């Protein structure tokens, strides 16, 4: 959130994470180079570069896809979520180096257009086993390009949530293409069981992580709350919520985030107006509920973005009786002020 657009929206934390990303990438590249020179000393420099950057991009993609469920399982991973966009762009750059070198190495040294050569050097499109795996890598790279190119705040705001989210959901198509690119490539280019094993392990870990998180969240959505005489829902004990964090409870109107901050509690609708991010998975920063996805902010007592911004979400009334939080499930109009409930000491 800002009054103008920055080239890169850096703050101290983001700079620190970007430094970690750069050093992490360099460390991996040196490690891969060292291990290759020790165990496969006959590898040529071009092949080494192609494989180093390809496996780096693959590793980074797995980390990126794991961040979402990890944050839902443990809030300690949230800083990774705040910096996921920079990690995504860095991953695209690694994939671009891999793709660029591969295109040059395998297709640019003849008298045919390299892109045309990429599509026609293996014409076995009818076979699942011999399918031209480089074409899958090419299309995956195109998707990653579109995602990286639209990661700036300008596109977040102006492409509309529907288009932007739809475009970025294509990461799953890219991931499937990359899985086949690596899998078929490993069989068609070399008999490396190691590459396929690492990729299989990554795939299994990701699928397990997402399914566990999905089951947990589906369970939360089905949770039924005790109803008191005023038809308010008994949610939880106030001590169940950490300071500056929220508890998300799902009612008929959708998920609600009940935030504890500054000795008070307030409730707002859980869905961010910007891109549909889960507000309850964020935290209170500078007195504002901050969306974990893109940092959009709302005041906890009225669900309004601080001026001059104009986004608003629905608010809810709360009651506190003997440390138990009760929620009125009837949502108030977006941006309606609700007096925060003081927590008795």
């Amino acid at each position, binding site marked *: 959130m800002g*009054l*103008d*657009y*920055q*080239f890169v929206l850096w703050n101290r934390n983001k700079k620190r994470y970007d430094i970690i990303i750069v050093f992490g990438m360099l460390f991996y590249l040196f490690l891969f180079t060292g291990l290759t020179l020790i165990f*496969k000393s*006959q590898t040529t420099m071009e092949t080494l570069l192609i494989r180093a950057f390809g496996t780096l991009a693959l590793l980074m993609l797995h980390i990126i896809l794991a961040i979402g469920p990890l944050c839902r399982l443990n809030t300690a991973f949230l800083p990774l979520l705040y910096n996921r966009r920079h990690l995504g762009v860095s991953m695209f750059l690694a994939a671009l180096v891999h793709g660029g070198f591969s295109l040059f190495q395998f297709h640019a040294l003849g008298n045919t257009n390299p*892109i045309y050569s990429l*599509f*026609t050097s293996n*014409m076995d*499109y*009818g076979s*699942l*086993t*011999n399918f031209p795996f480089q074409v899958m890598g090419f299309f995956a790279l195109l998707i990653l*390009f*579109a995602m*990286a*190119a*639209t990661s*700036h705040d*300008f*596109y977040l*705001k*102006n*492409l*509309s*949530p*529907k*288009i932007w*989210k739809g*475009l970025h*959901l294509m990461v*799953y198509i890219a*991931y*499937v293409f990359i*899985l*086949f690119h690596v*899998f*078929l490539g490993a*069989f*068609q280019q*070399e*008999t*490396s069981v190691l590459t396929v094993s690492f990729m299989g392990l990554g*795939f299994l870990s990701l*699928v397990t992580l*997402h*399914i566990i998180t*999905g089951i947990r*969240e589906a369970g939360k959505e089905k949770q039924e709350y005790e109803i008191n005489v005023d038809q308010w829902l008994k949610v939880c004990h106030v001590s169940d919520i950490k300071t500056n964090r929220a508890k998300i409870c799902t009612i008929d109107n*959708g998920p609600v985030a009940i935030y504890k901050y500054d000795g008070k509690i307030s409730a707002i609708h859980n*869905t*961010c*107006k*910007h*891109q*549909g991010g*889960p507000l309850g998975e964020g935290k209170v920063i500078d007195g504002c509920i901050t969306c974990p996805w893109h940092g959009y902010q709302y005041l906890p007592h009225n669900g309004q973005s601080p001026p001059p911004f104009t986004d608003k979400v629905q608010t809810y009334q709360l009651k506190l009786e003997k440390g138990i939080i009760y929620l009125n499930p009837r949502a108030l109009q977006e941006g309606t002020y609700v007096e925060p409930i003081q927590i008795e000491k």
Partner: protein
Amino acid sequence: MLVLIHIVLVILAIYFCIGLCFGIYFVLAGAAKIDPLIKESKFNVRFLLAPGSVATWPVLMLRLLGKSTGAKGVNLIKTHRIIWLSIAIIVPGLLFLSIENLSFQNIDVPTSDRPQSEYEKVLKSKENRFLIASIVHVQDNKMQLDVTVKKSLEYPTLTLYAIGENGDRNKLIGQIGSKGTYRFTIEDNINGILLYDALKKITVTKFEF
């Protein structure tokens, strides 16, 4: 298939050519028409918008024409769940099918493997940077081909053939894997050998004795 590839490549080329032209206009003027906040920003920000405008020019053009591109506040948590479930079910199946069809030449790999102590006489031997190959006379008046792979050959399906009189693949001898020594019983004396990758359909190396 070639026609389809041409169509795909032409569509891609047209899309990116229009995108490039639109990108220049968008960086210079279009972005500020969609979002006046860009005027308040430094000029270098506009250059960062260029790749995105090339990639998404049809949507941005709709925005410039004043068309709506969707409502706010989408919640896609369930969509993510469905996608992951689909990936978990479909992808392993496809991966399995892709290697189930993997034909390693449909060959019966010869199984003759004799200890070196039974050698009687080395008849022929030759070496290049990949292999050492020897034809030896073993007990019971039989011949054996010993092939030592000196370093890992990064080909998925290496098969060993005896070469014919005109130097082409003649008779299948067996399959070669990673680095190591392989021994095959052969019935006749052979002129030379070649290593062939059937999946990539290339001859990796060959030599005559």
